[in-house]
């Protein structure tokens, strides 16, 4: 592992950042990582979310992966959970679609209807 001094710097910056924004996470992104999801490319989907969050410096989202999805015909599947709103599930995801979801849904608050497979 790299030097811990780097981590301390990140921590200080993040603490400042969070104080300013006074915010927890606005969105929770859950990538379905069951066997069929993995076989269909869910890892690349996860990777693209992380890349986008890092490069766009999005601080108010949490990303997790779970093996508990059961929609094999529409994998890779992604849930976007926002407090007080319905959960939106996107299906047949890939890298390009993730980029659009990040820019339109996460950044601008407009769900991408083309990719939605369920809402509840």
């Amino acid at each position, binding site marked *: *592992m790299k030097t811990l001094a*780097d981590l301390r710097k*990140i*921590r200080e910056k*993040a603490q400042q950042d969070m104080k300013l924004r006074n915010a927890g996470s606005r969105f929770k992104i859950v990538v379905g990582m069951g*066997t069929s999801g*993995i*076989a269909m490319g869910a890892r690349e989907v996860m990777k693209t979310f992380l890349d986008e*969050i890092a490069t766009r410096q999005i601080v108010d989202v949490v*990303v997790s992966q779970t093996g508990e999805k059961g929609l094999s015909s529409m994998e890779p599947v992604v849930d976007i959970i926002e407090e007080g709103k319905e959960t939106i599930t996107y299906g047949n995801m890939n890298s390009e679609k993730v980029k659009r979801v990040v820019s339109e849904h996460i950044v601008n608050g407009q769900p991408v209807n083309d990719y939605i497979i369920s809402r509840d």
Partner: protein
Amino acid sequence: MQDLSLHLLDIIENSTRAGASLIKISIDADEKKDVLKFKIEDNGSGMDADTLNNALNPFYTSKESREKKVGLGIPLFMQNAELCEGSFHVTSKLGKGTDLEAIFKKSHIDRMPVGSLADTIIGSLIGHAETDFYLKITHNTRDEVFEYEFDTRVLKEELGDIPLTYPDVIQYIMEDVNNGIKNTKMGEI
């Protein structure tokens, strides 16, 4: 699965679903012994003998959607190891956890490529922030030994309440894991 790193991801998902709070992953390549070994140990809920048997059986599925606890993941990984003059062992204790070991003959013509270990590791440890991961990669070439270790417990202690999905933390993890694994030359085998 197209490569071994995707099998590894599938096994990690099993461990997290079993409620593991710590997952230890070791990957050893040894050119002299011509062996490639994956070992995944977790402290999750474990399985009793019947469930373990079922987990190894490709024809077993309870198929009650979310009740489904095992699937094709483990049998496929096992088959791949056995196809390569390797071996596959799972030991599990209810309430204690599960240890899985898959061994491949490294030079076997049917051995799948390792694939992107970094992508599997980065996604898993950020995507399961509540689980601790300890990773150790050892690559023993004919004249050198390359090693890489990553322990999320150290990382989390330094970060305190800063989430792993904070942008700079993602960057830090990506850089460290990508470079670390690259330096072991594991990606090339």
